[in-house]
């Protein structure tokens, strides 16, 4: 079946993007969203060996915090499941141990941000540990979620239906997401999410555009938005292919 999709970026940065997809069914849009959240594997610390921990926190608490530090995930194929990468940390107080203090054994796997505080160390306190990072899915633990804020909304079409009466006070009409005005895509943040700002003195009507969804995708820094979306699509393609093969047998 030949399906025509049309993808158009509204906002685009490495870690955050908004894009419009036309021609998708709600089921398909939700499948892509769920795949981005739960089925794209990322690296995260899973096992920690403590050499010294004289901080005020238990080993387990520090281990959890290390696990939640986003790590860059190597390109597909570079890494197979069950491979580990070791990161070490050695901080002597008085200082704050940051994610940037982690030293990785692999250039491809680094803390995505340098400024995630792990623990504040006072005089004579020290944290020295080795942490093993593994690749796993968001399904198994939230620390492996590559997409941290992934959602979609219907694209909404604005139509000016007439003028307001001369002395009528205009009520604010709040809308969030992206609106389509004469084929032009406008993020609602441009007019403070209030249609009354964009169309003063006008009466406007809003309607959902069928089969048009505006995705908002934000990643934790493990990879770019592009990579997250294509890997999510790949995971669905893989499963469909697998089912195809299984049925043929």
């Amino acid at each position, binding site marked *: *079946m*030949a*399906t*025509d*999709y*049309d*993808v*158009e*970026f509204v906002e685009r940065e490495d870690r955050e993007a908004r*894009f419009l*997809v036309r021609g*998708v*069914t709600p*089921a*398909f849009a*939700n*499948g*892509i969203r*769920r*795949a981005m959240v*739960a*089925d794209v594997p990322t690296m995260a610390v899973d096992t920690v060996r403590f050499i010294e921990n004289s901080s005020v926190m238990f080993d387990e608490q520090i281990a959890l915090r290390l696990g939640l530090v986003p790590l860059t995930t190597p390109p597909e194929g570079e890494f197979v499941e069950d491979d580990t990468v070791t990161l070490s940390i050695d901080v002597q107080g008085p200082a704050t141990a940051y994610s940037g203090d982690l030293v990785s054994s692999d250039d491809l796997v680094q803390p995505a941000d340098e400024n995630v505080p792990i623990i504040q160390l006072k005089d004579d306190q020290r944290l020295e540990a080795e942490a093993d990072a593994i690749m796993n899915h968001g*399904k198994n633990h939230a620390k492996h979620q590559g997409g941290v804020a992934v959602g979609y909304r219907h694209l909404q079409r604005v139509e000016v239906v007439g003028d307001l009466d001369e002395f009528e006070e205009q009520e604010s009409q709040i809308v969030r997401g992206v609106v389509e005005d004469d084929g032009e895509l406008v993020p609602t943040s441009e007019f403070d999410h209030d249609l009354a700002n964009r169309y003063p003195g006008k009466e406007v009507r809003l309607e959902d555009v069928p089969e048009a969804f505006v995705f908002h995708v934000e990643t934790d820094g493990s990879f770019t938005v*592009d990579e997250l*979306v*294509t890997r999510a*699509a*790949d995971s*669905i*393609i893989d*499963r*469909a*292919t*697998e*089912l*195809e093969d*299984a*049925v*043929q047998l």
Partner: protein
Amino acid sequence: MELRVTESSETELSIEIAGEDHTFMNVLKGALLESDDVTAATYDMNPEQSGGQTDPILTIKTEPGVDPLDALEEGAITVREKTTAFRDAFEAAA
């Protein structure tokens, strides 16, 4: 992906698809319902806490003369093609 047929007749099929969740099943169901050969398609899944059957069971009913297993294969192909088309469209825009 392990398949286990739980019920089967000329135009009806119930099949357990081990290890899958709503992510794939709902997309597959949506694709099956778009086909003219399929009269009904649904899946049933229980939460982990239910303690019983937790793998999804897909049920397909087809028009007379159409093997539901073929319809399922067709559905899987549709999902693959749709997703590939989406991926291509995304990469073209990116």
